């Protein structure tokens, strides 16, 4: 990686009591290329703070500025630093001797400029005695790295980051004297990776005269978390917690029980309660070739108790021209494309809703479909869901198939496209409909391999001809050719048996679309409405 130089910035305002220890701990770093910059932020203690810093002579650099707050002091250090990497040490905290060396080694291995390391820490009292530790769960943070920010787990004095990255995001925001660090981490969650180092590399001092305990600090902190609630997008929330509602509930819990922000916690709870009802919904409709059937399909969407925000109509240009525009916001995506996955991809690309329901003419939705499915997905934080359906006046209870259905889904996929609703973030992850020649079921398998499927037992769609049975033969071919799934011999064997069952004399070939074939029902794997 080349340049391994590190700058340790120590901003201080009237901190003669602990500054010396902090500087000593920075000087004790085993990493050789370390520069230490103390920024005296306008101390007015008759030169005591400055005297402590100056006692270290030319082993450190001392800068002075009028009292303008930590953010300005850090920006001053950033501007004067010569190290490629940057870390920050509060004047009352202490680095463990191997902190910089360990973190530089990790950054060397990763060889990326967009990584911000942070670590566990131990708490010390005013006398420097260790009183406790903050050790985070490394596995949980690896699987959900953004949680570190959203759970308030990043201590600024444990970080090591490329200085250029901090400068690129604009440095520390000087409008916020108490939350400049968390404002910075928030910007960095969008620009970089927070990577947890599971070692206590900092001794963080808790003492009564800390600035963060003051009333104006608490009020700024509340304003910060309120901004986080308002400005975290649906996609970002779904990435962290599975849905915006879950995000708001978890953040509300964090604010209520692990931070002094009761008022913002109440705000989070209020927002969570109305979240499902306010979530944006798109319906992607493959209109087919029968104009009347397409109209019935569209009518069923317009007749929803909770109408969607938009309908994306995909299909033959001549049919779409006739269907034109209607009451609900209709987006037309004309295409001569004969392959269904390609048409669905086209529709999903146009969709703006946080939730997207899929529907193929001549199938229809029951009036409560969108309201119920969105409410369940939102509450449980599920990215993919499907339901039972009605066919010829009878209920086909495919909705009992839910929860962790992988790898069982390889052998028995009971998901019908017109019952599917996903969160758009699942499409944005690049999992769905990227291979236009693959059977539809392959997409449900891809999703199940990474996420839980929510199965809703109530029939929310009416389906004329189930497509899942007709997909068994192409699915088998796809599975046998798939490097990722072909090792599921037992499940593939079950699919073969089911396929052989549908191919007994007197029945039509399954891949020709047997209208009488109905999927065998099976017990729920994760319980009804099972989800994450």
């Amino acid at each position, binding site marked *: 990686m080349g340049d391994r130089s590190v700058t340790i910035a120590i901003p201080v305002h009237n901190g003669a009591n602990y500054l010396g220890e902090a500087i000593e701990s920075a000087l004790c770093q085993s990493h050789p290329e370390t520069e230490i910059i103390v920024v005296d932020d306008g101390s007015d203690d008759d030169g005591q703070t400055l005297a402590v810093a100056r006692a270290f002579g030319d082993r450190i650099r001392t800068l002075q500025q009028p009292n303008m707050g930590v953010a300005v002091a850090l920006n001053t250090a950033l501007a004067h630093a010569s190290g490629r990497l940057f870390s920050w040490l509060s004047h009352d905290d202490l680095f463990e001797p191997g902190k910089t060396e360990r973190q530089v080694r990790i950054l060397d291995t990763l060889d990326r400029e967009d990584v911000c390391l942070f670590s566990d820490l131990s708490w010390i009292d005013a006398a420097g005695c260790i009183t406790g530790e903050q050790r985070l769960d490394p596995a949980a943070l690896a699987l*959900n*790295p953004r949680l570190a920010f959203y759970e308030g787990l990043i201590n600024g004095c444990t970080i090591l980051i490329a200085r250029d990255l901090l400068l690129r995001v604009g440095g520390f925001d000087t409008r916020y004297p108490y939350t400049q660090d968390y404002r910075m981490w928030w910007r960095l969650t*969008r620009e970089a*990776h927070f990577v947890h*180092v599971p070692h206590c590399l900092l001794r963080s001092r808790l003492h009564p005269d800390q600035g963060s305990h003051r009333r104006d600090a608490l009020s700024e902190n509340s304003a910060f978390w309120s901004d986080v609630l308002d400005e975290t997008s649906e*996609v970002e929330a779904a990435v962290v917690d599975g849905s915006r509602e879950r995000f708001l509930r978890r953040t509300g819990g964090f604010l209520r029980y692990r931070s002094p922000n009761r008022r913002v916690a109440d705000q989070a709870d209020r927002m969570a309660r109305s979240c499902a009802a306010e979530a944006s919904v798109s319906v992607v409709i493959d209109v087919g070739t029968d104009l009347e059937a397409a109209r019935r399909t569209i009518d069923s969407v317009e007749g929803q108790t909770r109408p969607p925000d938009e309908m994306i109509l995909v299909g033959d240009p001549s049919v779409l021209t006739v269907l034109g525009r209607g009451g609900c916001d209709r987006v037309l995506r004309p295409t001569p494309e004969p392959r269904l996955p390609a048409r669905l991809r086209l529709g999903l690309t146009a969709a703006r809703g946080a939730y997207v329901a899929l529907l193929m003419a001549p199938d229809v939705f029951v009036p409560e479909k969108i309201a119920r499915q969105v409410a369940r997905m939102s509450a449980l934080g599920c990215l993919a869901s499907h339901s039972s359906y009605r066919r010829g006046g009878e209920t086909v209870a495919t909705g009992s198939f839910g929860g962790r259905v992988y790898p069982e889904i390889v052998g028995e996929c009971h998901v019908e496209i017109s019952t599917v609703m996903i969160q758009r973030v699942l499409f*944005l992850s690049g999992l769905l409909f990227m291979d236009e020649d693959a059977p539809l079921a392959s997409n449900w398998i891809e999703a199940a391999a990474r996420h839980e499927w929510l199965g809703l037992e109530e029939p929310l769609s009416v389906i004329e001809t189930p497509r899942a049975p007709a997909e068994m033969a192409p699915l088998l071919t796809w599975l046998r050719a798939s490097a990722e799934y072909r090792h599921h011999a037992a499940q593939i064997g079950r699919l073969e048996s089911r396929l052989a069952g549908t191919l007994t004399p007197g029945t039509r070939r399954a891949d020709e679309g047997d209208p009488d074939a109905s999927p065998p029902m099976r017990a729920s794997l994760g319980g009804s409405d099972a989800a994450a």
Partner: protein
Amino acid sequence: MTSATDCEAIQALLRETQRRLAVADHRLAILESSNRTAVRAMRRFLQDRERLVAEREAALIQVSIAVGDRQRTMVLNDHLLATLRDGEKAHARLEDENRHLRRQVAESGSSSALTVDASGFTS
């Protein structure tokens, strides 16, 4: 003066004591050796454990980066698609405007045709 019997008894006691001491020494040697082996094994186990812990840490960091990359891709895809949709809307608006202008020009019979070229707008 010690009698011959007493002397024999003392000799026997000495032999017995020496024998027991030899057994004890032997046991101690065995214990020492097994203890050394245990310490060596312990040290090796600890080294292996340290290596495994370091490997686990490295693997978790790789997982964290991979998950982070995937999540950022989703967010970036979202922005990209939003930009694309905005571009399409603007394109459609320009085309509408263009049609409207052409119609106006045709109706007024003017020879100077005003057009707004919408082709290639989306990017």
